[in-house]
């Protein structure tokens, strides 16, 4: 079994990220992120074929990636996100629903179409860009604080009851 993850980004500014950054500004945090970027993550569990199969599959379904508006790549530690300001310190928060029909429906569709896909998970990756010289541990803490809305005023990016979050590395 192989696990392969791809990230998909809009080539134009993502309105969701614009609104989210606006909402974060309104929270009047001491050290808010200066930039915010949003990507969609697709996690494939494959029985064979690896990146080649995923590339092929992405080429088949414009719902997952439409090259006319989105760019995509295999995620990995060394890959820099397109358009991210290297002058900032970036942290990533992955948000996914405990159960979602997008993942379910795509998994069964791909299986039905004969792709060697065992499962597929859809999630959202928020990349938060903090001022450069901020302490790395602090960045991580601040990002995590923003990640879960436990109360009406605190946290933002996920609902604690229906979603799970992870620090993206």
């Amino acid at each position: 079994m192989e696990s392969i993850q791809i990230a998909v980004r809009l080539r134009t500014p993502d309105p969701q990220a614009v609104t989210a950054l606006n909402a974060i500004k309104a929270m009047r945090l001491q050290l808010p992120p200066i930039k915010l970027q949003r990507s969609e993550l697709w996690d494939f569990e494959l029985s064979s074929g690896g990146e080649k199969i995923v590339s092929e599959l992405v080429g088949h379904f414009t719902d997952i990636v439409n090259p006319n508006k989105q760019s995509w790549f295999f995620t990995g530690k060394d890959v820099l996100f397109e358009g991210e300001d290297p002058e900032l310190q970036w942290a990533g928060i992955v948000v996914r629903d405990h159960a979602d029909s997008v993942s379910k429906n795509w998994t069964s569709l791909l299986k039905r179409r004969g792709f060697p896909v065992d499962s597929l998970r859809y999630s959202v990756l928020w990349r938060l860009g903090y001022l450069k010289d901020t302490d790395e541990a602090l960045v991580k803490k601040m990002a995590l604080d923003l990640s879960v809305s436990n109360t009406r005023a605190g946290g933002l990016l996920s609902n604690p009851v229906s979603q799970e979050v992870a620090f993206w590395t």
Partner: protein
Amino acid sequence: MSSAAVIRFPGSNCEFETARVLRYSGIDTRIYNWNDIERLSDNRADAYVLPGGFSFQDRIRAGVVAARESIMDLVFEEAINGKPVLGICNGAQVLLESGLVPGWKPGSVQGALAGNLAPGRSGYLSGWVHLKASPEAIERCPWLCSVDQESFPLPIAHAEGRFVFREEDMDRVKSHIGLKYCKENGSASSGWPENPNGSALDIAALMNAEGNVLAMMPHPERSFHLWQVPPDIGGPWGDRRRNSSLKELEELPGPGAVIFKSLAKYLGVE
């Protein structure tokens, strides 16, 4: 005269019809913009309604950004003081994200309206469903106090309408049920499509412990008149709709009217 305030967030889109049916029900109703806080603060209403729509385009997730708008501080305060508060569709999502419903610890987010789960489809779903009120709600909830034990149809139109709770809360959530999805004849739903979104316990509307705050996914404001009911719907409402005279079609209430009639009764409107 009793009054209601309909709160419009950027992206709300059901504020006008909601205000209209409140007025038809004898309640003096005004629409307040999200930033019209001072005016609202000076003219407190007897009841508050958060209308349907797509506040902030459901970005990040439905209701979360609106829940943080300053005007919600006022609604929050009024809700805690026991004033009737109704959230319809997107308004319900705002109430969940505000921690007013289920509201065991007001302000804490203890439930979610997550993306619809339905076989073979995702995203938005519109259509008519059948509903039944819980005895607790009829007793406690100002928005449901005139509802009887019979099932009735209402339209839904949402992409995120699935009530979700933590495993450990599943028991205590039962006494908060306002409306449940059910079969046309009122018997318990056996899943899709009677329960259109995979909602826990078939919940379509959920209230706080006191019952004054109700978060409901169906749209009663779109089914206020009998003429708004689809001609092909089953059950007694369908028969009434198909067999009505011209006069009845115009004058008889639709199944959604009872929500606003309930409030009027609660507020003592003649």
